């Protein structure tokens, strides 16, 4: 099942700040700790699953409305206020825009792990490339401040921030699909070509940088 192009485009166009509205409650759901962070192929220990800022991830509050607390986001338009909603409730940001194909099961309160029951990674229905990565992070409980500072300006985080959860580059390379004839996480072009943000973008569609020169065609998240 592919989401029709038009819908996908609308989905992407909704952009970064929209998602921030959804990311507002604070507690770190204990249910996620010890699972696999929802990261495809991720099999690391639960310790490295904690967000970089010391265990406080902004999460979409799904489990308990009571424990939900809103964080007043300061600054830019679309980034403020309490207009948050529940996990997986697309309409809280996308409003009337249909972002899911007709007939899709209700996603309200659905964490990424549940999405993956159908959308198995590396299978035809994988979500790779179909949803901004910030959405995926949100669906496993990682909001803006998991990677960014709490105050503007919200700069691109250092790569260490990504590696805190995703493991070292060597670990990533080892976990990458061994059937690929080139390992995108172990490029012969050295460390600069292993910068996460060379390919994996959060608030825009990711880009296979290798494909600017090679025919590798990696399906990247």
């Amino acid at each position, binding site marked *: 099942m592919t989401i029709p192009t038009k819908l996908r485009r609308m989905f*992407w*166009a909704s*952009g970064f700040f929209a998602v921030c509205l959804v990311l507002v409650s604070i507690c770190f759901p204990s249910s996620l700790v010890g699972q696999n962070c929802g990261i495809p192929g991720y099999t690391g220990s639960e310790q490295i699953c904690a967000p970089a800022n010391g265990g406080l991830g902004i999460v979409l509050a799904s489990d308990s409305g009571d424990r939900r607390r809103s964080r007043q986001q300061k600054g830019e338009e679309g980034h403020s206020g309490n207009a948050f909603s529940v996990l997986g409730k697309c309409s809280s940001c996308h409003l009337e825009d249909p972002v899911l194909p007709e007939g899709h099961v209700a996603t309200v309160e659905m964490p990424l792990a549940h999405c993956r029951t159908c959308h198995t990674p590396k299978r035809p229905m994988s979500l790779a490339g179909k949803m901004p990565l910030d959405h995926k992070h949100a669906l496993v409980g990682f909001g803006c401040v998991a990677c960014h500072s709490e105050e503007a300006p919200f700069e691109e985080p250092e790569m260490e921030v990504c590696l805190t959860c995703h493991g070292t580059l060597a670990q990533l390379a080892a976990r990458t699909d061994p059937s690929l*004839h*080139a390992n995108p996480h172990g490029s*012969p*072009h*050295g*460390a*600069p*070509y292993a*910068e996460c*943000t*060379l390919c994996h973008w959060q608030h*825009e*569609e990711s*880009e*296979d*940088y290798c*494909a*600017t*020169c*090679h*025919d590798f065609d990696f399906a990247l998240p």
Partner: protein
Amino acid sequence: MKSKYMGRKARLTRREMLGTGALAGVSVALAGAVEAAPRAGIPDSWDEEVDVVVVGTGFAGLAAAIEAAKAGASVALLEKMRTPGGNSIISGGVIAAAGSPMQAEEGIEDSVDSLYDDMMKAGLHLNHPKLARIVAEKSVETVQWTIDELGVEYRGLTHMGGHAVPRSYSLSAGSGSGIIVPQLNKLKEMGVEPRTRTLLKHLIRDAEGRVVGVQIHEKFKHPNMDSGKPKTIRARKAVVMATGGFGSDPDFRMLQDPRLGGDLDTTNHPGATSEALREAMNIGCVLIQPSWIQLGPWTSPDERGFGYAPHFVQGVSASFGLWIDTLTGKRFVNELADRKTRADAILAAGNKCIAMSDAEGYAKGSAGRPTDTLDKMKANGVLMEYATLEDMAAAHDIPLEALQATIDTFNQSVDAGVDSDMKRYFPNNVGKIGTAPYYVVRLSPKIHHCMGGCGINEKAQALDVVTGDPIPGLYVAGEASGGVHGASRLGSCAYADCLTFGRIAGQNAAAEAG
């Protein structure tokens, strides 16, 4: 809307831009040339001030930045792409050094003159002799600098086409990252980090003709030339332009050589475009020899870019195998000739040639390489394996008898120790061809190197188009400069050129009065 698929479609986009570019040129001409080439004035106030601005993070830019920082200058190091390294970081990993310690170990006699002669011969003597000689003279010093100051590691010597003897140091890393990464590390130690996604938009020249700073775009998004936020940086001492070649710019390529248009593939990184050179011309630099654009003879139509093919075609087949014209079953060129000779020969033969080797040749030519290279090349579809010579001939429509005769002649040459057919250099361990399986890579030359660029003097100072004198405050080094290589660059000589002149530029820039 966001920059969807920007990199992926970059080639196409540029090709599309070709059309609109030509149209824009027409309308600009009608509207008046002043609009077309606006020069940046001196800003009322600068956003930032440093001693030396270095543009480009390939070998040349990083070498310049290292030398300038070492001399105590403050450095702003700019790079328009998301990642540093340009063509350098993706390059093949060999650097020429004539009369080197490694040659001495292997008992290979060599000299500066010999390298210089090879460069001049390949360059059809269009090389600017003083510049070429500097590269040859400093080649050993430059390699030694990478070892002593950067900790670069090499795994052995390679014999590159057009060189009289094996004299090219091969990086252990297998690609230019083996120098770029240590260069970046060195700079980090010195407190200089590349500012990626920072485009050089304008060079700013004052009334006295001195280059006094730059206008840049921060948060630039390749290839959108209007993207990013303008900002000015004053260069108290000088600007070093090390922005590389224009191999990925079909528009500019075609201006210089109308045959080399958008349909041709290139080995270059997507950022190898001409805007910095155009700006250099805009402020009065003189562009020299830009029509000499080199095609690499060792690439394959079965993959994009540089890819895997050269490892086999150059590393294996050129020394231990044969290049065959599939129409005739014969060799058509000395497989170790310079690039221009070989690329021209492939094209003249109708672009239907292959590089082949037998199993023993493969083993010899790939010694020291990662053992999975063969599997990767096969999986990628670029290298084909055949159990017999008959299978190979059938698969590529080669007349079998002629092919067999070619191989017999070659094997006799191996016995005799002299290549009777093409006078190719034989390494000590060259062997007869005959052990199955046989390997084949199809050949199709691709745009590889721009010999032309800004005219410079021996100090790497850019020359003024009107006076021919150096432009104060502006240095150009690396592939962005012209003259060192004349009509055709020899393999492994670009590293030597870029690092040598990058260092010269950085030293001289830092020595300017601030």
